[in-house]
């Protein structure tokens, strides 16, 4: 890539577009001219109707698919290079744990791939289990855990090698409301503890507002950014969900979404 982005920016998209099956009858314009910059240590939520290209944008940032046009930078590098450098960790709606590995060995998988020694791995996985409060479950297999616990393991795995960025695609989408709120609080605690930058895809308005410092609203396909809403609710706590400002922000996001709804 000819140009690069300043390193104080965690993720940057410059006029990025994504067209699937270009030139064929089944061509899909998934993303159109996305400009976005996420600062180091920031927490940004991407919200939009289903099929608007949120996952595609995240996969672009992860360097899993190339942009058709424009550029994506992660830590000042081309996204694909950042992927090779293991600059980010990733978590999906399906926890995507490996059934055949115990919880501890799931968390250690990226460390094994990075060639860490056994001692270093056990030390780190113990720390991560502690962080996600699953210390008693290291020897369990994923199928012995609840959905919320599995998702915590997935987060521990994504953070085990201390990436500076966490990319999350509806990670709590399959959880019940109670577990979901609990996991949101956990994620914020981990975010504050680790100073990781987070890009969080969701289709829940309250979730986006509760978690993020910035909510990016996307239009239906082809996905474009239609609003960029700062959320300044201070440190989140039990009171946050009853804060009038919380409701104001929810309303603001909802109206931005409604403005672009398909008739």
């Amino acid at each position: 890539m000819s140009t690069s982005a300043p390193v104080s920016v965690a993720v940057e998209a410059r006029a990025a577009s994504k067209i699937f099956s270009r030139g064929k009858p089944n061509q899909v314009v998934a993303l159109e001219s996305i400009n976005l910059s996420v600062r180091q240590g920031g927490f940004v939520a991407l919200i939009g109707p289903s099929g608007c290209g949120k996952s595609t944008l995240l996969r672009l940032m992860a360097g899993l698919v190339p942009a058709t046009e424009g550029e994506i930078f992660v830590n000042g590098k081309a996204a694909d290079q950042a992927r090779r450098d293991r600059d980010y960790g990733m978590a999906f709606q399906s926890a995507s744990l490996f059934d055949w590995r115990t919880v501890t060995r799931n968390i250690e998988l990226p460390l094994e791939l990075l060639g860490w020694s056994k001692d270093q791995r056990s030390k780190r996985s113990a720390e991560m289990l502690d962080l996600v409060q699953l210390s008693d479950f290291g020897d369990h297999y994923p199928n012995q855990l609840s959905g919320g616990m599995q998702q915590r393991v997935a987060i521990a795995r994504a953070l085990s090698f201390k990436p500076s960025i966490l990319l999350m695609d509806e990670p709590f989408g399959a959880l019940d409301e109670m577990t979901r709120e609990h996991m949101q609080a956990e994620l914020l605690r981990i975010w504050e503890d680790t100073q990781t930058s987070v890009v969080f895809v969701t289709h829940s308005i309250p979730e986006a507002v509760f978690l993020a410092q910035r909510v990016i609203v996307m239009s239906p396909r082809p996905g474009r950014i239609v609003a960029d809403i700062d959320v300044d609710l201070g440190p989140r706590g039990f009171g946050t969900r009853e804060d009038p400002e919380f409701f104001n922000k929810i309303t603001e996001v909802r109206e931005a979404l409604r403005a672009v709804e398909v008739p």
Partner: protein
Amino acid sequence: MTNHARLRAIAPPLVVGVGGLALWELVLTVLNPKAFVLPRPSVIAGKVVEQWSTIITATTNTGFIAVTGLIAGALLGIMVAILVSRFQIVSEAVTPLAVAVNAIPIIALAPIFNFWFGLRSPRSNQGIVVLLVFFPVFVNSVRGLTEVHRGQLDLMESFAASTWETLKEVRIPNALPYLFTSLKIASSLAVIAAIVAEYFGGDQAALGQLIVQQAALSRYSSAWAGVLAGTLMGMALYLVVVGLERWFMPWRVTEIERSGS
């Protein structure tokens, strides 16, 4: 598994088996049809005792053919499946060929194999077993190696894992349940293939030869004793595969325990 659960798993087949044998014995005793139609279980058991060493030798020889053929066929199936799942070109070349081979009534090749390898060579019967085992193992392994969750593949890519690492950490473990399903089928198939192939040639001291020869001499109880030995061998092989399955997939055992009792 708790003792109670184990008992519950074993009891029904045991009851049906023993009950079936008793009924068989009783019906034949009461109706007393001609012995060559179907001998009573007690008569067959008597023959097994009477010809113990002949049957043991024949079973050992046939077992060797079945087990070596099973192992070779399975390894071949797994290796070709790995190549096919890895390289599109290999897949395009091999898959139609494998399907074509599968369409051949493989057991009908036994006389031809005897001609190729020599009438009394064990190679020809091993070859039949290998061919017969290959296909189910190959097809199931390919499925297991390729039907992997998208998220797991994305994850490995996000870790910048190599193709080899993805094969080792995701595709192969993912394929194990498929592989063992096919091995359970193949274990019975291997015994059947070995015995039927022996009808046409190969080692004289083998179950297939024992069965044809005794039947030709109208010694049907002895022929049945051979069938019984083959049945027990098939069951033993199956149980070995089930044991290996549990050994290789401890996470599956916990799954079964959770859903059962």
